[in-house]
């Protein structure tokens, strides 16, 4: 019951911003994960996943975030998510993933926290 996730990627300062859209579930997570993990593979990498286009996240999507968080920790990088819609925010709360990955209300807030120099504050 998954749709395609079209994930766009952009660079803001030192941070990479991934913007998946649609449902992040068992079918659509693998391509997202394949982009996410290499980005975090370089030491000190900063990655923000902008969830503003995501309607739902299943356990597979959450697991990819867990793998990303582990990779970030191992390589001294940072991973955060932002702009969760109400449904996704509830799933983060129920699964306790809000304690695994830092959650920010919007992209600017995430970038400011993770890469202050890059957003020129």
């Amino acid at each position, binding site marked *: *019951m998954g749709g395609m996730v079209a994930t766009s990627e952009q660079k803001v300062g030192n941070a990479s911003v991934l913007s998946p859209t649609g449902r992040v579930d068992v079918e659509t997570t693998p391509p997202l994960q394949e982009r996410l993990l290499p980005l975090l593979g370089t030491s000190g990498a900063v990655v923000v996943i902008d969830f503003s286009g995501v309607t739902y996240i299943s356990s597979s999507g*959450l697991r990819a975030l867990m793998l990303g968080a582990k990779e970030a920790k191992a390589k001294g990088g940072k991973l955060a998510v932002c702009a969760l819609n109400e449904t996704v925010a509830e799933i983060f709360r129920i*699964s306790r993933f809000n304690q695994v990955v830092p959650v920010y209300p919007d992209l600017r807030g995430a970038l400011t926290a993770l890469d202050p120099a890059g957003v020129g504050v």
Partner: protein
Amino acid sequence: MLIRFWGTRGSLPAPLGGAALQGKLRAALRKASGRSFTDDAEIDRFIASELTFAERSTFGGNTSCVEADIGSDEHLILDLGSGVREFGNRFMSGAYPGKKKVFNILMSHPHWDHIMGFPFFVPAYVPGHTIRIYGGHSTLDNAFRRQHAEPSFPVDYSQLGASIEFVTLDPAKTYDIAGAKVRLMRQHHTGDSYGYRIEHGGRSLIYSTDSEHKFEETGDTYPFVDFFRNADLVIFDAMYSLADAVSIREDWGHSSNIIAVELCHHAAAKRLCLFHHDPNSDDRSIAEVLQDTRRFEELARDGRAPLDVLSAYDGLEIEL
């Protein structure tokens, strides 16, 4: 099929402490302040209607033991955690006049919390009783003998009066046990565990505890989806939050409410019962997990038929 939960706690018995009891009394008195009651019946009605489950009752503290009464003339029990003591006492009080003194036990695995009730299962001491202990592990009897041996217990296994047999089951086969159709499936857990599918009279029960799901592949093709398919009731190990289950408690052999709902949705199961509660969780937090799980079920439903979600407690009975 009538399901009775005799023990629903994971890992270790967790008795309700005095402080927890006082918290319940406080909540009840607060809600009752200003009220007057003419008799006990009115108090009981107030308790039932005004207090939450966590305020008026408790999920209980006995470890895993579930009875599946299919109405046949032999007993069918899942696991021998501390809850089996109360089942044994009920049997000894004459509550099962129509049944033979034959106890069929399906074992998930021999971890301590799943066998610890056996030394206190009174029917095991009575000559003429038959106890058949089934499981996927070929060495189950060692675990039972060992917990009866000195210096851990005063009565040696050889002193038990009942006739006790161990039967190793093969996950590739289907069995007739106590009149029910029984299949089992190996689960990811330290030393392995086995989940059971029990069918009788057009109804199906899944008992799947102490089972970690490495959820890379929990989509439609995951073998557990087939095993759970269209089950009327799925009793599921939801001991941890998803975050804990995949991080600090990865490889601890347990699962979460999130995976429970996703698997039941994929399998089109009708009812999910959260089981093997963390002994560190109090009644309020177990009730919150239940509420959260019901909410997640709504969010995850995606056009499917609703899945009924409940949380097991010692004493719960479910008619299938």
